[in-house]
Protein backbone atom coordinates (compact mmCIF):
# COMPACT_ATOMS: atom_id res chain seq x y z
CA UNK A 1 0.00 0.00 0.00
CA UNK A 2 1.33 3.47 -0.85
CA UNK A 3 0.45 6.39 1.32
CA UNK A 4 -0.75 9.55 -0.38
CA UNK A 5 1.52 12.42 0.65
CA UNK A 6 1.54 16.10 -0.11
CA UNK A 7 4.34 18.68 0.17
CA UNK A 8 4.70 20.63 3.41
CA UNK A 9 6.68 23.85 3.76
CA UNK A 10 8.71 24.06 6.95
CA UNK A 11 10.64 27.02 8.25
CA UNK A 12 14.01 26.12 9.80
CA UNK A 13 15.87 28.78 11.72
CA UNK A 14 17.09 31.46 12.13
CA UNK A 15 17.27 30.39 15.79
CA UNK A 16 18.06 26.72 15.39
CA UNK A 17 20.91 24.90 17.14
CA UNK A 18 22.18 23.34 13.91
CA UNK A 19 22.26 26.35 11.64
CA UNK A 20 25.82 27.31 12.70
CA UNK A 21 24.75 30.82 13.56
CA UNK A 22 21.64 32.56 12.37
CA UNK A 23 20.59 31.08 9.04
CA UNK A 24 17.12 30.39 7.78
CA UNK A 25 15.83 27.83 5.31
CA UNK A 26 12.37 27.54 3.89
CA UNK A 27 12.19 23.85 3.02
CA UNK A 28 9.47 21.98 1.18
CA UNK A 29 9.28 18.36 2.26
CA UNK A 30 7.38 15.52 0.69
CA UNK A 31 7.36 12.97 3.44
CA UNK A 32 11.01 12.89 4.47
CA UNK A 33 12.34 13.94 1.09
CA UNK A 34 13.45 17.50 0.40
CA UNK A 35 11.69 18.95 -2.64
CA UNK A 36 12.79 22.56 -2.52
CA UNK A 37 15.05 24.76 -0.42
CA UNK A 38 15.14 28.51 -0.23
CA UNK A 39 18.03 29.92 1.83
CA UNK A 40 17.39 33.28 3.50
CA UNK A 41 20.42 35.30 4.56
CA UNK A 42 21.15 38.52 6.37
CA UNK A 43 20.40 37.92 10.05
CA UNK A 44 23.99 38.73 11.01
CA UNK A 45 24.59 41.59 8.57
CA UNK A 46 26.55 44.33 10.31
CA UNK A 47 27.67 46.33 7.31
CA UNK A 48 31.38 45.58 7.76
CA UNK A 49 32.24 46.80 4.25
CA UNK A 50 30.63 50.16 4.91
CA UNK A 51 32.18 50.43 8.38
CA UNK A 52 35.61 49.80 6.84
CA UNK A 53 35.24 52.99 4.81
CA UNK A 54 35.38 55.14 7.93
CA UNK A 55 38.25 53.39 9.71
CA UNK A 56 42.00 53.60 9.14
CA UNK A 57 43.76 50.71 7.39
CA UNK A 58 45.03 49.36 10.71
CA UNK A 59 41.61 49.63 12.38
CA UNK A 60 39.87 47.56 9.70
CA UNK A 61 41.72 44.49 11.06
CA UNK A 62 39.28 44.40 13.97
CA UNK A 63 36.39 44.15 11.50
CA UNK A 64 38.03 41.27 9.64
CA UNK A 65 38.29 39.35 12.95
CA UNK A 66 34.54 39.50 13.28
CA UNK A 67 33.80 38.28 9.75
CA UNK A 68 34.86 34.66 10.06
CA UNK A 69 35.16 34.39 13.81
CA UNK A 70 36.40 30.79 13.83
CA UNK A 71 39.33 31.63 11.55
CA UNK A 72 40.11 35.26 12.24
CA UNK A 73 43.87 34.87 11.68
CA UNK A 74 43.16 33.88 8.08
CA UNK A 75 40.87 36.88 7.57
CA UNK A 76 43.59 39.10 9.02
CA UNK A 77 46.14 37.58 6.66
CA UNK A 78 43.99 38.09 3.53
CA UNK A 79 43.29 41.69 4.48
CA UNK A 80 46.95 42.47 5.23
CA UNK A 81 48.09 40.98 1.93
CA UNK A 82 45.67 43.30 0.15
CA UNK A 83 46.91 46.33 2.12
CA UNK A 84 50.53 45.42 1.40
CA UNK A 85 49.78 44.99 -2.30
CA UNK A 86 47.93 48.28 -2.40
CA UNK A 87 50.56 50.24 -0.49
CA UNK A 88 53.61 48.47 -1.94
CA UNK A 89 54.72 47.52 1.60
CA UNK A 90 57.62 45.08 1.92
CA UNK A 91 56.83 42.81 4.89
CA UNK A 92 59.42 41.84 7.53
CA UNK A 93 60.48 38.17 7.06
CA UNK A 94 60.01 37.14 10.70
CA UNK A 95 56.56 38.68 10.67
CA UNK A 96 55.65 36.69 7.57
CA UNK A 97 56.80 33.39 9.11
CA UNK A 98 54.91 34.17 12.31
CA UNK A 99 51.71 34.91 10.46
CA UNK A 100 52.09 31.74 8.41
CA UNK A 101 52.37 29.75 11.65
CA UNK A 102 49.35 31.56 13.06
CA UNK A 103 47.38 30.98 9.85
CA UNK A 104 48.10 27.25 9.76
CA UNK A 105 47.25 26.88 13.45
CA UNK A 106 44.01 28.68 12.70
CA UNK A 107 43.30 26.32 9.82
CA UNK A 108 43.66 23.36 12.22
CA UNK A 109 41.28 25.03 14.68
CA UNK A 110 38.77 25.85 11.96
CA UNK A 111 38.80 22.33 10.48
CA UNK A 112 38.40 20.90 13.99
CA UNK A 113 35.29 23.02 14.44
CA UNK A 114 33.97 21.89 11.05
CA UNK A 115 34.52 18.21 11.84
CA UNK A 116 33.25 18.44 15.41
CA UNK A 117 30.02 20.15 14.43
CA UNK A 118 29.53 17.85 11.44
CA UNK A 119 29.47 14.92 13.83
CA UNK A 120 27.21 16.88 16.15
CA UNK A 121 24.80 17.33 13.23
CA UNK A 122 24.98 13.59 12.52
CA UNK A 123 23.60 12.98 15.96
CA UNK A 124 26.81 12.07 17.76
CA UNK A 125 25.80 14.40 20.52
CA UNK A 126 28.67 16.03 22.35
CA UNK A 127 31.47 13.46 22.36
CA UNK A 128 33.27 14.01 19.01
CA UNK A 129 32.77 17.72 19.44
CA UNK A 130 34.58 17.58 22.77
CA UNK A 131 37.54 15.81 21.16
CA UNK A 132 37.66 18.39 18.36
CA UNK A 133 37.25 21.34 20.68
CA UNK A 134 40.12 20.09 22.86
CA UNK A 135 42.57 20.70 20.00
CA UNK A 136 41.00 24.02 19.15
CA UNK A 137 41.37 25.04 22.79
CA UNK A 138 45.12 24.33 22.61
CA UNK A 139 45.39 26.50 19.50
CA UNK A 140 43.46 29.32 21.12
CA UNK A 141 45.74 29.21 24.16
CA UNK A 142 48.71 29.64 21.82
CA UNK A 143 47.00 32.62 20.21
CA UNK A 144 46.60 34.07 23.68
CA UNK A 145 50.39 33.81 24.08
CA UNK A 146 50.94 35.48 20.69
CA UNK A 147 48.59 38.41 21.01
CA UNK A 148 46.57 38.24 24.22
CA UNK A 149 43.32 37.39 22.46
CA UNK A 150 41.73 34.06 21.66
CA UNK A 151 39.02 34.64 19.07
CA UNK A 152 39.24 38.21 17.80
CA UNK A 153 42.99 38.27 17.44
CA UNK A 154 43.84 41.43 15.45
CA UNK A 155 47.38 40.02 15.46
CA UNK A 156 48.51 41.20 12.04
CA UNK A 157 49.66 44.65 11.02
CA UNK A 158 50.68 46.03 7.61
CA UNK A 159 54.07 44.43 6.97
CA UNK A 160 54.02 41.75 9.66
CA UNK A 161 52.59 41.12 13.11
CA UNK A 162 52.29 43.46 16.07
CA UNK A 163 54.57 41.63 18.51
CA UNK A 164 57.05 38.78 18.56
CA UNK A 165 56.11 35.40 20.00
CA UNK A 166 57.06 35.05 23.68
CA UNK A 167 59.70 32.44 24.57
CA UNK A 168 57.24 30.02 26.10
CA UNK A 169 55.34 29.91 22.80
CA UNK A 170 57.91 27.75 21.01
CA UNK A 171 57.99 24.76 23.43
CA UNK A 172 54.19 24.86 23.65
CA UNK A 173 53.94 24.81 19.87
CA UNK A 174 56.43 21.96 19.68
CA UNK A 175 54.58 19.76 22.15
CA UNK A 176 51.28 20.56 20.42
CA UNK A 177 52.70 19.51 17.04
CA UNK A 178 54.10 16.32 18.60
CA UNK A 179 50.75 15.41 20.13
CA UNK A 180 48.44 16.43 17.29
CA UNK A 181 49.13 13.56 14.82
CA UNK A 182 48.18 11.06 17.55
CA UNK A 183 45.09 13.06 18.40
CA UNK A 184 44.06 13.11 14.72
CA UNK A 185 44.73 9.36 14.49
CA UNK A 186 42.59 8.84 17.57
CA UNK A 187 39.75 10.93 16.15
CA UNK A 188 40.06 9.17 12.79
CA UNK A 189 40.04 5.72 14.35
CA UNK A 190 36.60 6.52 15.77
CA UNK A 191 35.25 8.20 12.67
CA UNK A 192 36.86 7.44 9.31
CA UNK A 193 36.08 3.72 9.40
CA UNK A 194 32.81 4.07 11.25
CA UNK A 195 29.97 2.25 9.49
CA UNK A 196 27.29 4.62 10.75
CA UNK A 197 29.21 7.55 9.33
CA UNK A 198 29.64 5.73 6.00
CA UNK A 199 25.93 5.02 5.84
CA UNK A 200 24.96 8.57 6.64
CA UNK A 201 27.50 10.53 4.59
CA UNK A 202 28.60 8.49 1.56
CA UNK A 203 26.80 9.40 -1.64
CA UNK A 204 24.82 12.19 0.02
CA UNK A 205 24.78 15.70 -1.53
CA UNK A 206 27.23 14.86 -4.32
CA UNK A 207 28.89 17.76 -6.09
CA UNK A 208 30.40 17.18 -9.53
CA UNK A 209 33.69 18.96 -10.24
CA UNK A 210 32.57 20.89 -13.33
CA UNK A 211 29.41 22.08 -11.59
CA UNK A 212 31.42 23.12 -8.54
CA UNK A 213 33.93 25.14 -10.60
CA UNK A 214 31.09 26.81 -12.49
CA UNK A 215 29.54 27.88 -9.18
CA UNK A 216 32.85 29.41 -8.00
CA UNK A 217 33.17 26.87 -5.19
CA UNK A 218 36.70 26.76 -3.76
CA UNK A 219 38.67 25.34 -0.88
CA UNK A 220 38.27 21.92 0.76
CA UNK A 221 34.83 21.62 -0.88
CA UNK A 222 36.34 21.80 -4.36
CA UNK A 223 39.20 19.46 -3.44
CA UNK A 224 36.64 16.97 -2.12
CA UNK A 225 35.24 16.92 -5.67
CA UNK A 226 38.67 15.96 -7.01
CA UNK A 227 39.88 19.32 -8.33
CA UNK A 228 43.50 20.04 -7.41
CA UNK A 229 43.18 23.76 -6.72
CA UNK A 230 44.86 25.24 -3.68
CA UNK A 231 46.04 28.85 -3.80
CA UNK A 232 48.92 28.07 -1.44
CA UNK A 233 50.26 25.79 -4.15
CA UNK A 234 48.96 27.38 -7.37
CA UNK A 235 49.50 31.03 -6.50
CA UNK A 236 51.80 31.07 -3.44
CA UNK A 237 51.51 34.15 -1.24
CA UNK A 238 53.73 34.96 1.76
CA UNK A 239 56.43 32.22 1.86
CA UNK A 240 54.29 29.26 0.81
CA UNK A 241 56.66 28.70 -2.11
CA UNK A 242 59.37 27.80 0.42
CA UNK A 243 57.45 24.99 2.13
CA UNK A 244 56.53 21.55 0.85
CA UNK A 245 53.12 20.04 1.44
CA UNK A 246 50.63 17.70 -0.22
CA UNK A 247 47.10 18.48 -1.20
CA UNK A 248 44.67 15.75 -0.12
CA UNK A 249 42.08 15.04 -2.82
CA UNK A 250 38.97 12.89 -2.85
CA UNK A 251 36.95 12.11 -5.95
CA UNK A 252 33.54 11.37 -4.46
CA UNK A 253 32.37 14.94 -3.83
CA UNK A 254 29.95 13.80 -1.13
CA UNK A 255 29.67 14.66 2.54
CA UNK A 256 32.19 12.00 3.48
CA UNK A 257 34.75 13.35 1.01
CA UNK A 258 34.42 16.84 2.45
CA UNK A 259 34.93 15.49 5.96
CA UNK A 260 37.90 13.36 4.85
CA UNK A 261 39.69 16.19 2.99
CA UNK A 262 39.54 18.44 6.08
CA UNK A 263 40.84 15.64 8.27
CA UNK A 264 43.85 15.05 6.01
CA UNK A 265 44.53 18.75 5.52
CA UNK A 266 45.21 19.14 9.21
CA UNK A 267 48.15 16.74 8.86
CA UNK A 268 49.54 18.95 6.08
CA UNK A 269 49.18 21.98 8.34
CA UNK A 270 51.48 20.28 10.85
CA UNK A 271 54.09 19.75 8.10
CA UNK A 272 53.89 23.40 7.06
CA UNK A 273 54.22 24.71 10.62
CA UNK A 274 57.27 22.50 11.23
CA UNK A 275 58.96 23.90 8.12
CA UNK A 276 58.10 27.46 9.18
CA UNK A 277 59.65 26.88 12.61
CA UNK A 278 62.80 25.53 10.95
CA UNK A 279 63.17 28.49 8.61
CA UNK A 280 62.23 31.37 10.92
CA UNK A 281 65.12 33.66 11.87
CA UNK A 282 65.49 36.40 14.47
CA UNK A 283 64.71 39.91 13.35
CA UNK A 284 62.06 42.59 13.47
CA UNK A 285 58.47 41.35 13.22
CA UNK A 286 57.32 44.36 11.22
CA UNK A 287 58.90 47.28 9.35
CA UNK A 288 59.87 50.35 11.38
CA UNK A 289 57.45 53.25 11.70
CA UNK A 290 59.68 55.24 9.33
CA UNK A 291 59.03 52.72 6.56
CA UNK A 292 55.39 51.98 7.36
CA UNK A 293 53.79 54.82 9.36
CA UNK A 294 50.95 54.21 11.79
CA UNK A 295 48.54 55.85 9.37
CA UNK A 296 49.14 53.98 6.13
CA UNK A 297 48.32 56.10 3.07
CA UNK A 298 48.47 53.84 0.02
CA UNK A 299 48.58 55.61 -3.35
CA UNK A 300 45.30 55.90 -5.24
CA UNK A 301 44.47 52.63 -7.00
CA UNK A 302 43.03 49.22 -6.29
CA UNK A 303 44.33 45.78 -5.32
CA UNK A 304 42.88 42.30 -4.93
CA UNK A 305 44.66 39.72 -2.80
CA UNK A 306 43.35 36.24 -2.10
CA UNK A 307 44.49 33.46 0.21
CA UNK A 308 43.47 29.86 0.67
CA UNK A 309 41.25 30.34 3.68
CA UNK A 310 39.92 27.46 5.76
CA UNK A 311 36.71 27.59 3.71
CA UNK A 312 37.98 28.57 0.28
CA UNK A 313 39.39 31.49 -1.61
CA UNK A 314 39.22 34.41 0.80
CA UNK A 315 39.94 37.66 -1.01
CA UNK A 316 39.93 41.35 -0.24
CA UNK A 317 39.43 43.95 -2.94
CA UNK A 318 40.58 47.36 -1.70
CA UNK A 319 40.29 50.70 -3.45
CA UNK A 320 42.31 53.65 -2.18
CA UNK A 321 41.85 57.33 -2.94
CA UNK A 322 45.14 58.22 -1.22
CA UNK A 323 43.52 58.80 2.17
CA UNK A 324 43.95 57.08 5.51
CA UNK A 325 40.95 54.78 5.14
CA UNK A 326 39.88 52.47 2.29
CA UNK A 327 37.60 54.06 -0.30
CA UNK A 328 36.01 50.65 -0.83
CA UNK A 329 36.67 47.35 0.92
CA UNK A 330 35.05 44.30 -0.63
CA UNK A 331 35.35 40.80 0.78
CA UNK A 332 35.21 37.76 -1.48
CA UNK A 333 33.62 35.58 1.18
CA UNK A 334 33.99 31.83 0.51
CA UNK A 335 31.26 30.97 3.02
CA UNK A 336 28.68 32.90 1.01
CA UNK A 337 29.80 31.77 -2.43
CA UNK A 338 30.02 28.09 -1.41
CA UNK A 339 26.30 28.29 -0.65
CA UNK A 340 25.45 28.94 -4.32
CA UNK A 341 24.64 25.28 -4.96
CA UNK A 342 22.94 24.60 -1.62
CA UNK A 343 19.55 24.07 -3.27
CA UNK A 344 20.87 21.61 -5.87
CA UNK A 345 22.86 19.71 -3.25
CA UNK A 346 19.92 19.26 -0.91
CA UNK A 347 17.05 18.44 -3.27
CA UNK A 348 16.32 14.73 -3.18
CA UNK A 349 18.11 14.09 0.11
CA UNK A 350 16.34 13.29 3.36
CA UNK A 351 15.33 15.53 6.21
CA UNK A 352 17.92 14.01 8.55
CA UNK A 353 20.73 14.76 6.09
CA UNK A 354 19.84 18.41 5.65
CA UNK A 355 22.01 19.74 8.44
CA UNK A 356 24.76 17.22 7.74
CA UNK A 357 25.08 18.48 4.16
CA UNK A 358 24.82 22.04 5.38
CA UNK A 359 27.52 21.43 8.00
CA UNK A 360 29.78 19.74 5.47
CA UNK A 361 29.93 23.00 3.48
CA UNK A 362 31.57 24.49 6.60
CA UNK A 363 30.33 28.02 6.57
CA UNK A 364 30.40 30.76 9.08
CA UNK A 365 27.49 33.14 9.32
CA UNK A 366 29.72 36.04 10.31
CA UNK A 367 31.34 35.74 6.91
CA UNK A 368 28.17 34.98 4.94
CA UNK A 369 26.38 38.12 6.08
CA UNK A 370 29.32 40.33 7.06
Amino acid at each position, binding site marked *: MTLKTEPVSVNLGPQHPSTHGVFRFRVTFDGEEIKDVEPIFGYLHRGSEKLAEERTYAQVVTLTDRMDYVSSMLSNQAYMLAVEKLGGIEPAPRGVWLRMIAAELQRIASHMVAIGFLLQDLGAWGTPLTYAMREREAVLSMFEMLCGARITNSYLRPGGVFMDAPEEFWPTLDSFLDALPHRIDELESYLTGNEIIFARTKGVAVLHPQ*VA*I*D*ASITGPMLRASGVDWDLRHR*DPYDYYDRVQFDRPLHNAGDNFARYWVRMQEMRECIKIIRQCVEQIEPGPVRPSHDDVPFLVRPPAGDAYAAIEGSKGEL*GFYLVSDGGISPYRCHV*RAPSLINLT*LLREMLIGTLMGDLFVSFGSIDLNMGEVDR
Partner: protein
Amino acid sequence: MTRSWSGEKLAEAIEAFAPGVTTDSNASDVWVQPDRIKEVCEGLRSRPEFKFDLLSGVTAVDYVDHFEMVYHLTSLPKNAKAVLKAKCGWGREDPVVPSVTPVWRGAELQEREVWDLMGISFEGHPNLKRIALWEGFPGHPLRKDFATYAQSLVPVEELR
Protein backbone atom coordinates in the same frame (compact mmCIF):
# COMPACT_ATOMS: atom_id res chain seq x y z
CA MET B 1 52.52 31.03 -9.71
CA THR B 2 49.28 32.17 -11.30
CA ARG B 3 49.97 34.25 -14.41
CA SER B 4 48.23 37.62 -14.49
CA TRP B 5 47.01 38.77 -17.90
CA SER B 6 48.27 42.26 -18.68
CA GLY B 7 45.39 44.61 -19.44
CA GLU B 8 46.70 45.64 -22.85
CA LYS B 9 47.20 42.04 -24.02
CA LEU B 10 43.78 41.00 -22.78
CA ALA B 11 42.17 44.01 -24.49
CA GLU B 12 43.82 42.97 -27.76
CA ALA B 13 42.64 39.38 -27.36
CA ILE B 14 39.08 40.49 -26.54
CA GLU B 15 39.02 42.81 -29.57
CA ALA B 16 39.87 39.81 -31.74
CA PHE B 17 36.50 38.14 -31.03
CA ALA B 18 34.34 41.15 -30.04
CA PRO B 19 35.48 44.19 -32.05
CA GLY B 20 34.91 47.60 -30.51
CA VAL B 21 33.96 46.35 -27.07
CA THR B 22 36.94 47.51 -25.00
CA THR B 23 37.01 51.13 -23.92
CA ASP B 24 40.28 51.35 -22.01
CA SER B 25 43.09 49.25 -20.57
CA ASN B 26 46.15 49.58 -18.35
CA ALA B 27 48.85 47.25 -17.03
CA SER B 28 46.43 45.09 -15.05
CA ASP B 29 42.81 45.85 -16.00
CA VAL B 30 40.55 46.03 -19.05
CA TRP B 31 37.45 48.19 -19.31
CA VAL B 32 34.64 47.05 -21.58
CA GLN B 33 31.25 48.45 -22.55
CA PRO B 34 28.78 47.54 -19.78
CA ASP B 35 25.95 46.51 -22.11
CA ARG B 36 28.14 43.90 -23.83
CA ILE B 37 29.67 42.41 -20.67
CA LYS B 38 27.85 39.10 -21.07
CA GLU B 39 29.09 38.59 -24.62
CA VAL B 40 32.68 39.27 -23.47
CA CYS B 41 32.34 36.91 -20.49
CA GLU B 42 30.96 34.11 -22.67
CA GLY B 43 34.00 34.44 -24.93
CA LEU B 44 36.43 34.56 -22.01
CA ARG B 45 34.87 31.47 -20.53
CA SER B 46 34.63 29.25 -23.59
CA ARG B 47 37.45 30.28 -25.95
CA PRO B 48 40.50 28.02 -25.77
CA GLU B 49 42.98 30.91 -25.44
CA PHE B 50 41.34 32.12 -22.16
CA LYS B 51 39.38 29.30 -20.48
CA PHE B 52 38.35 31.44 -17.49
CA ASP B 53 36.19 28.76 -15.91
CA LEU B 54 36.09 30.14 -12.35
CA LEU B 55 34.65 33.53 -11.53
CA SER B 56 36.50 34.57 -8.39
CA GLY B 57 34.52 37.65 -7.58
CA VAL B 58 32.00 40.20 -8.73
CA THR B 59 31.82 43.55 -7.02
CA ALA B 60 31.10 47.20 -7.67
CA VAL B 61 32.60 50.51 -6.61
CA ASP B 62 30.82 53.85 -6.33
CA TYR B 63 32.99 56.61 -7.84
CA VAL B 64 30.24 59.24 -7.27
CA ASP B 65 30.00 60.32 -10.94
CA HIS B 66 29.74 56.70 -12.09
CA PHE B 67 29.77 53.12 -10.84
CA GLU B 68 32.31 50.50 -11.79
CA MET B 69 31.68 46.76 -12.02
CA VAL B 70 34.76 44.65 -11.23
CA TYR B 71 35.09 40.99 -12.26
CA HIS B 72 38.00 38.86 -11.04
CA LEU B 73 38.44 35.87 -13.33
CA THR B 74 40.51 32.74 -12.78
CA SER B 75 41.43 29.99 -15.20
CA LEU B 76 42.10 26.64 -13.55
CA PRO B 77 43.46 24.80 -16.63
CA LYS B 78 45.78 27.66 -17.61
CA ASN B 79 46.49 28.87 -14.04
CA ALA B 80 45.86 32.47 -15.07
CA LYS B 81 43.88 35.40 -13.73
CA ALA B 82 42.54 38.65 -15.11
CA VAL B 83 40.55 41.69 -14.04
CA LEU B 84 37.64 42.92 -16.12
CA LYS B 85 35.91 46.21 -15.39
CA ALA B 86 32.96 48.14 -16.76
CA LYS B 87 31.95 51.71 -16.04
CA CYS B 88 28.23 52.20 -15.79
CA GLY B 89 25.54 54.43 -14.25
CA TRP B 90 26.92 57.79 -15.34
CA GLY B 91 24.96 60.63 -13.76
CA ARG B 92 23.71 58.26 -10.99
CA GLU B 93 20.60 57.21 -12.89
CA ASP B 94 19.63 53.67 -11.94
CA PRO B 95 22.37 51.53 -13.42
CA VAL B 96 21.57 48.27 -15.19
CA VAL B 97 24.10 45.77 -16.55
CA PRO B 98 23.51 42.33 -18.07
CA SER B 99 23.83 39.51 -15.54
CA VAL B 100 26.69 37.04 -15.97
CA THR B 101 24.88 34.36 -13.93
CA PRO B 102 23.96 32.46 -17.14
CA VAL B 103 27.70 32.32 -17.91
CA TRP B 104 28.97 31.41 -14.44
CA ARG B 105 26.56 30.13 -11.83
CA GLY B 106 28.91 31.52 -9.16
CA ALA B 107 27.79 35.08 -9.90
CA GLU B 108 24.30 34.46 -8.56
CA LEU B 109 24.71 35.35 -4.90
CA GLN B 110 27.39 37.95 -5.59
CA GLU B 111 25.19 39.86 -8.02
CA ARG B 112 22.38 39.79 -5.50
CA GLU B 113 24.80 41.29 -3.00
CA VAL B 114 25.81 44.05 -5.44
CA TRP B 115 22.14 44.84 -6.10
CA ASP B 116 21.34 44.91 -2.40
CA LEU B 117 24.23 47.01 -1.19
CA MET B 118 25.18 49.07 -4.25
CA GLY B 119 21.91 49.28 -6.17
CA ILE B 120 23.11 48.08 -9.56
CA SER B 121 20.48 45.83 -11.09
CA PHE B 122 21.24 42.88 -13.35
CA GLU B 123 19.26 42.10 -16.47
CA GLY B 124 18.61 38.39 -16.85
CA HIS B 125 19.37 37.41 -13.24
CA PRO B 126 17.13 34.49 -12.21
CA ASN B 127 16.37 35.70 -8.69
CA LEU B 128 17.36 39.32 -8.11
CA LYS B 129 16.25 39.89 -4.53
CA ARG B 130 17.91 41.62 -1.61
CA ILE B 131 20.30 39.31 0.23
CA ALA B 132 21.67 40.96 3.40
CA LEU B 133 18.91 43.49 4.01
CA TRP B 134 15.16 43.11 3.94
CA GLU B 135 12.81 44.02 1.09
CA GLY B 136 11.75 47.60 1.51
CA PHE B 137 15.00 48.80 3.11
CA PRO B 138 15.46 52.45 2.10
CA GLY B 139 18.46 52.92 -0.22
CA HIS B 140 21.62 50.95 -0.89
CA PRO B 141 24.16 51.29 1.95
CA LEU B 142 27.45 51.00 0.06
CA ARG B 143 26.66 54.04 -2.11
CA LYS B 144 28.63 57.09 -1.11
CA ASP B 145 25.51 59.19 -0.61
CA PHE B 146 24.22 56.78 2.05
CA ALA B 147 25.55 58.25 5.30
CA THR B 148 26.22 56.07 8.33
CA TYR B 149 25.40 57.34 11.79
CA ALA B 150 28.99 58.52 12.35
CA GLN B 151 29.05 60.24 8.97
CA SER B 152 25.80 62.01 9.75
CA LEU B 153 27.43 63.58 12.83
CA VAL B 154 30.77 64.66 11.33
CA PRO B 155 31.31 65.76 7.72
CA VAL B 156 33.13 63.12 5.69
CA GLU B 157 36.00 65.50 4.86
CA GLU B 158 36.83 65.86 8.56
CA LEU B 159 36.83 62.10 9.10
CA ARG B 160 39.56 61.64 6.51
